[in-house]
């Protein structure tokens, strides 16, 4: 096994993991504010299809990116209206949103199945220009990959170093207390959901505009649920989400590595590793309060009525 094949595997892990990382970062924000979004799968699909459609129409992948992000934010507003305004059950609303996304994305994407686009331009990693062409091409990433770790840091900074982030976490822990200290839990949750949708939209855009550069029905193949699992795996912390996304996409890369070295392990079983790992991690914490979910995750905020 050569260095080149290992680097190739690493490169493909980064490519497939980026959409996961953005989505997970978004879901971290949402869950920190107390809302679990099981409809993430649907949001991703709607964003991926509309981003791709806009790219085909305008020929500009950056406009597609913008559209995907905005649509992601707006789709999340449906969930926001149901669970914040109408006080509906979060799990049920999320699942309904998922089915909505299945349908809407199929409708949006249908005329563009098989369309060809110019994906996001690739920019070589700085400092690799001296290397042979083969290596440079492995590590020339699109803008979203370059920005993925800065985005994680930004999300961490917003959540843990700004007043708004403090308010958001307070709402996620105890909305009534947050209200008593002068914050508006409803507004903060809407904002968190919108931001979360924007990030999910970016992840979806990376999938359809930068990575696969096409649209097929149900192309996200469970990434929304992976992201929800990743949020738990990374214990609701944006920096640990980077590790989580690498572990999840690394399982795929690992499988390629094994195949190239002639070891036959079922790809299906390797795919289960991240989930099993997440369950084991949960067991290892043993219900420790300090490390667990935001206290009012999934709860309805009734206000002062």
């Amino acid at each position, binding site marked *: 096994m050569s260095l080149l094949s290992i680097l190739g595997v690493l490169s493909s892990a980064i490519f497939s993991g980026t959409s996961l990382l953005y989505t997970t970062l978004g879901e971290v924000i949402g869950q920190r504010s107390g809302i679990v979004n099981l409809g993430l799968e649907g949001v991703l699909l709607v964003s991926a299809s509309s981003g791709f459609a806009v790219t085909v129409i305008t020929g500009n992948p950056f406009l597609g990116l913008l559209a995907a992000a905005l649509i992601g934010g707006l789709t999340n507003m449906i969930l926001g209206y149901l669970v914040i305004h*109408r*006080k509906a*059950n979060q799990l*049920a609303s999320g699942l309904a949103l998922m089915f909505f996304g*299945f349908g809407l994305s*199929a409708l949006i994407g249908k005329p563009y199945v098989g369309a060809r686009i110019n994906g996001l331009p690739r920019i070589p990693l700085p400092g690799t220009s001296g290397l042979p062409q083969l290596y440079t091409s492995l590590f020339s990433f699109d803008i979203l990959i370059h920005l993925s770790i800065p985005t994680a840091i930004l999300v961490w900074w917003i959540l843990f170093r700004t007043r708004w982030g403090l308010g958001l976490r307070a709402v996620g822990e105890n909305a009534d207390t947050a209200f008593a200290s002068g914050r508006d839990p409803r507004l903060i949750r809407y904002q968190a959901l919108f931001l979360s949708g924007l990030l999910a939209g970016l992840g979806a855009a990376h999938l359809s505009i930068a990575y696969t550069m096409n649209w097929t*029905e149900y192309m996200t193949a469970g990434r929304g649920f992976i992201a929800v699992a990743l949020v738990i795996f990374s214990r609701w912390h944006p920096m640990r989400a980077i590790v989580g996304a690498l572990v999840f996409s690394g399982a795929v890369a690992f499988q390629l590595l094994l195949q190239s070295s002639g070891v036959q392990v079922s790809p299906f079983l390797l795919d*289960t590793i991240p989930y099993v790992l997440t369950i084991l991690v949960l067991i290892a914490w043993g219900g420790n309060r300090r490390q667990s979910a935001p206290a009012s995750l999934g709860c309805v905020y009734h206000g002062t009525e």
Partner: protein
Amino acid sequence: MSQTAKTFPRVSLSNPLVNNLIRYLLMILLALLLFGIILLVTGKDPIQSYRDIFSATLGSTYGFSEVLLAMIPMLLTALAVALPARVGLINVGGEGQVYIGAAFATWGALAFQNKPAWILLPLMTLLGMIGGALWAFVPGYLKSIGLVNETIATLLMNSIAPKIVGFLIFGFWHSPMDTVKTDNFVSAARLPTFFDTRVHLGFVFALVLLALFWFIMKYTRWGLEMRAIGGNAQAARRNGIPLKGYLVTVMCIGGAIAGLAGMAQVSGFYGVLLLNFSMGLGFMGFLICWLAGGDPIGIFLMSFVVAVITTGGNLLQLTQGLPYAVINILLALALFVVLASPRFFEGKKA
């Protein structure tokens, strides 16, 4: 639900029922209207589409039987959520339990295919239920010893189950022609169907289980104890109700019912185990149960509405050239409308 009606006898029995029905119809109309607008925007004829959906489902005997057929897995997966919900457990894991139940039943069908139907079918049913129960045991046990929240655990195990089924199909069971499915089951491994329709014995299973659920919750000591746990688990424990035992058992029974849904799908509906065959059945069951407030009759009505929509979608695909998935929009709109109206069914479980 019924308790609230009894403690407040000033509410007459017929009024809320009629009110609910009217509200219910209005909601469906609103959803139809919204979906009609979407169809118009995409240049389709909404009136014709609805006529198609109607004629494909309620307009003919065969169409109606197809609706009943589609209801079978929904009834079962909804019940798999409703029972654990009575003791306060949130089982989002129906999807995974369906897959594992189907896998166990398929093993039975493939390993004992030369046995007669009267041995094979009960065996497959039992295997399917064991499979689902095992898959639910893990989150149930982890919850009962206070380690892992059952919502998270069942959700994670949903993602594992289809991959195990994929592993089994690709690695061992796939037919010589096709790597994404097993050989067709022998006729002894198929659930018998009624008359000339595709409605199979699973429908009877579902109805019997629904009735049993209603009876147990209402008239037996178990039902009383389960309701006590659902009301206040700690108080129930101090009153000598074996809390942990109930949590694990009820979760396993829920899983077994979902596993039965999986068995019914492979044995009754498909006659073969397909990769990714469920496509959200378990999640649909969760939604139906939640919208029905865990009430058996509500589950039946909700399943019926959802089944009409999904069955009608098949025809929409043929006549309007829309992708099948588009019918999910109408489904989701109906769900949104119901979700947005609080206290639709009284006393719903969170």
